[in-house]
């Protein structure tokens, strides 16, 4: 996925941003490729929006450099950067109709009237809002406003489009439909999309690559599968989806794998993340990669404390000596083994899905 031949659209080089004593971005180094759907994912306050706004020019950075297709842009004012933003609450100009809103960027760039009108028509067609060209923003629904904001940002044909949680104001159904539309739009236009969200499902379904951000630092960069299946550290493993973190003793790596000793004495050979080291460590395993088995063949043994019915699945919580309770996810199919409360059960870990995490 990380092809060294690909052109880099946006490069962060050891970018640091402080608000007083609070460090919002700490030595962030990150490359975003041309023509990719890139997502900045993290909990609120992690710095992902600050990172996005520093590309647009709304935040000054104290250290480091930001390059847009090789050109250093950190010192340029926002109106001199050829990127456009879809704002979280759209920020559509309330005194202009849809056409005027979409045409604003072209007007400021001095595009001639006929050409600008043609372009407005084009982008409104792209977002399927041709028939709303004369409406005022206040006469549009949330979903329509979101598409106007998208059209307005696309109209000047930016090299990079920045999207600041643009789906958060929409209801669930609409959000799911718009995800696919956005992804398609990125493929159709070939513009680099940089998308900010705190919603991991959104990130996993839409992105070519994802940067997981926490506490002003990039925790991991990779595609959806890598982020989910090969997390680097406990933050990434538990922020993306659900996981069990088991305290284990880690032996020295051998042949790309490590041997770990599980609570209760069982051993397992599994993969390790880059930062993992011998000694005390955390083993991550997803709930769906655990299966019930007879106690004598099990990696872990414990007793069931809670069963949560989720429709398609059941969550079974198992208390185990020496570590936090473990959750196993069992598909709710005919003939599936569902233990009962307080029953002693054995758990088998899928070694291919288990991973020792870095610090």
């Amino acid at each position, binding site marked *: 996925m990380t092809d060294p031949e690909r052109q880099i659209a946006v490069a962060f080089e050891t970018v640091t941003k402080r608000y007083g004593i609070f460090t919002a971005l700490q030595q962030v180094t990150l490359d975003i490729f041309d023509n990719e759907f890139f997502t900045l994912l993290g909990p609120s306050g992690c710095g992902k929006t600050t990172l996005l706004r520093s590309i647009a020019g709304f935040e000054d950075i104290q250290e480091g450099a930001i390059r847009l297709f090789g050109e250093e842009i950190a010192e340029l004012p926002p*109106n001199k950067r050829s990127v456009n*933003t879809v*704002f979280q609450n759209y920020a559509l100009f*309330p*005194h202009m109709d849809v056409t005027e809103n979409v045409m*604003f960027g072209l007007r*400021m760039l001095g595009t001639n009237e006929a050409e600008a009108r043609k372009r407005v028509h084009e982008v409104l067609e792209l977002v399927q809002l041709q028939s709303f060209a004369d409406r005022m923003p206040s006469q549009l629904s949330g979903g329509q406003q979101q598409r106007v904001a998208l059209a*307005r940002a696309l109209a*000047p044909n930016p090299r990079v489009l920045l999207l600041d949680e643009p789906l958060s104001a929409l209801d669930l159904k609409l959000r799911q439909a718009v995800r696919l539309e956005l992804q398609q739009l990125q493929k159709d236009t070939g513009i680099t999309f940089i998308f900010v969200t705190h919603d991991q499902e959104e990130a996993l379904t839409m992105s070519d690559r994802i940067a997981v951000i926490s506490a002003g630092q990039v925790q991991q960069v990779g595609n959806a599968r890598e982020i989910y299946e090969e997390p680097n550290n406990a933050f990434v493993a538990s922020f993306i989806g659900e996981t069990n973190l088991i305290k284990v003793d880690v032996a020295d790596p051998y042949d790309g794998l490590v041997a770990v000793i599980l609570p209760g004495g069982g051993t397992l050979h599994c993969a390790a993340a880059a930062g993992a080291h011998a000694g005390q460590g955390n083993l991550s395993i997803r709930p769906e990669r655990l299966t019930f088995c007879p106690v004598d063949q099990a990696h872990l043994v414990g007793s069931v404390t809670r069963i949560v019915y989720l429709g398609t699945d059941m969550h079974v919580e198992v208390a185990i000596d020496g570590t936090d309770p473990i959750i196993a996810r069992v598909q709710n199919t005919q003939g599936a083994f569902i233990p009962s409360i307080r029953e002693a059960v054995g758990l088998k870990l899928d070694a291919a899905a288990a991973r020792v995490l870095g610090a």
Partner: protein
Amino acid sequence: MAAEISSGGSSTVTTYEGQGARMMLPSWVIIGFFLVLPVGVMLIYSFLTKEFRGGVIWEFSLAAYDQFFFDRGLFGDDPPKIEWTYIAIFWRSIWQAALATILCLLIGFPTAWFIATRAGRSRSIWLFAVTIPYWVNLLIRTISMKFLIRDNGPLNEFLLSIGIISEPIGLINTNFAVQLGLFYSYLPFMVLPIYAAVERYNMAYSEAAADLYANKRASLRYVILPIVKPGIIAGCILVFVPSLGAFLAPDLLGGAKNFMIGSLIEEQFKGNAGNWPFGAAASMILLSMVLVVLTFYARAQSRAGAP
């Protein structure tokens, strides 16, 4: 009658459906007593005959309006010519008020913007600071302004002492002094409505404008000003209308040659020399002009789709 609906327990909900007229009564009384009645009295007085020692004789007459617009010579029997004296006073008043309004806008808009963009606590302190002078009586404030700008006042002394000027600049008794006085009197009426509009203004619009390649000037012209326009218009009206009828600033700072409508009207009701019907007529003419301005304002508001 208020219908009482028992809602099960001990509480009773009172509804006032269909009783709009009764509920509006206090408002109607206040409007009638303080608005319709005084204006009505003025309107009637403007059509009465003057009594020489002040007051009126209850006899219908158009003399007041006639005197305002026409010159019939010393004995009143020449063929009527247009009387320019009062029209000139009105025209000067409109000019003075307009310039004071522009001065207020030029200073008031940046001030309001500055205050509205401060953080919560310092914002209220700044707002309070703007209104502090208004706890002092307008007359006192206008007199202190006269003291400040007179030839041997602190302003001239200061400028002389630092050598910028070699003799006092004659500020007092000029048009500019009147505008300055009006500006000083009514600045908060400009600042407060603009502040209210700017406070509601979402800074994301400015970011969006910059993001779409607008420089600062274009952003101000195409985005900020149109959005806060209702506040600006309200501020202009609130400064222009009282400036038009003001008499303290013109009297104290402008001297005799900068006479304004307010002073003209004031004189008609002062002492024994006055002419009540003429003062009332001048007031009615002023009122009609103000109504024209307000109509323009209402039109602009509804076109801007303001709430």
